[in-house]
């Protein structure tokens, strides 16, 4: 088997010279997105880092049409553009809403929820850097427990856990929902391409580290992303129709401390709080495991009960499929 290598589509659509900070995870997300979808793509960007990264007028880095729109309107603008293209007879171009966590979890949420509920035919990518980075690192509902931001200073860091956006969207029963990470580009590209072939509302939640916002050296961007996956902080998964959960990668289960300790935004945390984070991560993982499809439990013998629950879910979803056909 030898070394892990990544087979990515060779075409580079993203141009260099963009305004991203060194080591930006959100920029890698865009690079892989464009590689996966090719040039027949329209990107809708609300207020977020990418409003700046794409470049000042008259420059643009994306290499495909980009529509900059207001903070709360990524999903509704994407709906409109998709409808516009359809009305011109263009059924091929993929419309992608590309928003940060602020524009997804908070400000853009009602437009997003509406589009998901109506099962609009476009792809929504959230590059999640866990705070309002572009405006100067203010907390968002995607900021994890214990993290420093300028609005949750070290003396009183964020007291709430990160909002579980994946679960909220799963509850919308959208056809395709996935999580991805810049450290696993082949997995991300495969998911984007899979989403491309699915009709209806597709949502991909991408873990995108931010060196200045999380306070780490830019060279560690990929390493930190990988640690988030391997420590179960951010599981890589796919959810079909909101019920059929599939794990994309079995995490190594490394302690969260290794992940936490690499980032300045967690520097003020004591052992006790880190332990609290570990407990939360473990509990969330357990909850997720219970939802996995049964064949995913072959290597998880301790969660037999969960496997039963998953079987029930699967049986229900199959009977529903059977009823419609």
């Amino acid at each position, binding site marked *: *088997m*030898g*070394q*892990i*290598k*990544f087979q*990515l589509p060779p075409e*580079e659509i*993203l*141009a*260099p*010279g*963009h*305004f*991203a*900070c*060194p*080591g*930006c*995870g959100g*920029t*890698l997300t865009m*690079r892989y997105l464009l590689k996966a979808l090719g040039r027949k793509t329209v990107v809708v960007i609300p207020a977020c880092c990418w409003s700046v990264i*794409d*470049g000042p*007028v*008259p*420059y*643009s*880095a994306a*290499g495909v049409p*980009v529509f900059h729109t207001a903070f709360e309107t990524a999903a509704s603008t994407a709906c409109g553009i998709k409808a516009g293209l359809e*009305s*011109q*007879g263009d059924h091929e171009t993929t419309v992608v809403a590309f928003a940060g966590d602020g524009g997804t979890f908070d400000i853009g949420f009602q437009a997003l929820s509406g589009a998901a509920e109506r099962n609009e035919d476009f792809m929504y990518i959230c590059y999640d850097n866990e705070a309002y980075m572009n405006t100067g690192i203010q907390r968002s509902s995607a900021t994890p427990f214990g993290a420093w931001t300028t609005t949750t200073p070290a003396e009183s860091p964020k007291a709430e856990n990160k909002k579980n956006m994946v679960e909220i969207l799963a509850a919308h029963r959208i056809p395709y929902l996935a999580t991805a990470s*810049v450290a696993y*580009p082949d997995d991300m590209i495969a998911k984007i391409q899979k989403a491309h072939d699915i009709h209806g509302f597709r949502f991909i939640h991408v873990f995108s580290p931010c*060196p200045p916002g999380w306070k780490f*050296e*830019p*060279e*560690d*961007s*990929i*390493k930190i992303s*990988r640690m988030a996956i391997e420590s179960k902080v951010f599981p890589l998964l796919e959810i079909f129709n909101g019920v059929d959960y599939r794990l994309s990668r079995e995490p190594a289960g490394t302690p969260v401390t290794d992940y936490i300790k690499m980032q300045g935004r967690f520097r003020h945390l004591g052992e006790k709080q880190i332990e609290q984070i570990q407990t939360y991560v473990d509990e969330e993982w357990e909850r997720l495991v219970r939802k996995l499809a049964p064949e995913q439990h072959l290597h998880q013998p301790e969660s037999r009960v969960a496997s039963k629950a998953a079987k029930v879910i699967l049986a229900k979803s199959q009977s529903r499929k059977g009823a419609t056909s």
Partner: protein
Amino acid sequence: MAKYKYTTVEEMPPLAFSLESTRKIPTGSWRHVRPVYKNKTSPCEVGCPAGEKIPEYFELLRQKRYEEAWYKILEDNPLPGVTGRVCYHPCEGQCNRKPYDEGVAIHNIERFVADQNLRNKKLPRVSESPKSEKVAIIGSGPAGLSCAYQLARKGYHAVIYEADHEPGGMLRYGIPDYRLPKKILDKEIADIESTGVEIRPDSRIGGSVAWSELEKYDAVFVAVGAMRSRKMDVPGEDMKGVFTGVDFLWEINNGDVPKIGRNVLVVGGGNTAIDAARTAVRLGKKATILYRRTRTEMPAVPEEIEEAEKEGVRFEFLVAPVKVTGSKGKVSRIELMRMKLGEPDASGRRKPVPVKGSNFQVAADTIISAIGEEPDLSFLPYSFLKKGVRLFVDDDYSTGVPGIFAGGDAATNPNGTVVNAIRAGKEAATSIDEFLGWRTKSNGTPHEVVRPEDVNTFYFPHESRVKVPRIPVAKSKTGFHEVNKTLSEAQALDEADRCFTCGTCLHCDVCMTFCPDVAISKDESGEYVIDYDHCKGCGICVNECPREAMELVPEGSREEVEEAQQV
């Protein structure tokens, strides 16, 4: 269908448009460190006494370019079929994969490459133009062969004087067939001869050939090895039934079968002792190894000890011979004394200390003493500086007598193993080249060696080391068939894939994959090009490189960086 009234941009209401690419914005000016490609040295290469370029020949092997892989090994070692079988492989001890899971089976791969070329007679061309100087080499063991071969490659006429009828020294007469079949040795010696080396058998210096004959040469390399077993220094060791390990193996390798009894006791813990015991087993005898320390301190190769055990060789640790007794001049018993381990000695191993009053007797009809070998230097016409029983040589293998160099087991520089002898021969050839004025002395560039923590192990999923195929024990202990087999092609390729290839870029594209600034691309020749006009110096490429073939250097003038790249 709605109709659009705009046909040109001018007709549209005002809206900011960006039609230019950001490529025009030179974000490279943000950078304060710059990534550069810089290959480093792998620890195995440093660990190999012969200095084989292991990552390079592994890469050729992975591309199934077996002949080129062979040539790559031959640059440093003309006997890969030999070392692939009998080397104690210190390279594997240094392997960065060892602390991760298991070291790569480098010597098995070396053997595979050599065996792929068993029928290949094309040796690399002599690298330099022929020179008029002639060099004499005394002894055709691994040191002599290696030196003669390297001299021939440098264009010299090298003549080896061999006292015995056939060349090879300890390789032929000290190592049994089941570890090193003669046909492998013959093939590789023939290869060496085909480079222009002349071997004169039955030419013992101080015997059939006078030392004065060497005076017509421009330089001499003394590589007579250590072919004489050391004495146990106990009463009765001259009795019938007591053999020395070297003599015993010599006879076997010469096709004779020495007369030995059913109950063979071998004294010693080195490879000669193991070889003697395993040979005795093959002759249908019961063999027991007596060693004065414990298994941990045994100098023999661990795999050989295991093999001996599998074949039924018994071990008695912490015992030393005191006296050999018998009747009518024939051995019947040996008196032994118990030992215990004391403080570490100069070799770093714990010293055996006798336990008083612990003497006991054991019945024995054959005793083989294999407690170490020493060189026979009686043929030298005048006195050389010695250290102990060996010729004292400087780091450049010079003996103090101008033009006379020495190496291998006869000399003080690294000795005791085949690969150390090969190294001595190779390095002495360089020194001789310098002595004869064809090359100036160089101090060599310091190695920047890749450490285990420099390897990005994420890219290397755990995989276990190849299991070396071997013939069944039942068969191995009844004859002199070679015990270990050569890896199959699939096994060799899989094992080579386990190699991290520390420090050498394999063009795996990881750097390119993770560049957020799209600043790394490949040119027509497949080499990476960094676009320094746009690279912001984030360092992800350097940090993610699986094998430490890149580094970050402080931003300076272009000249400074280019200079750094060339080192």
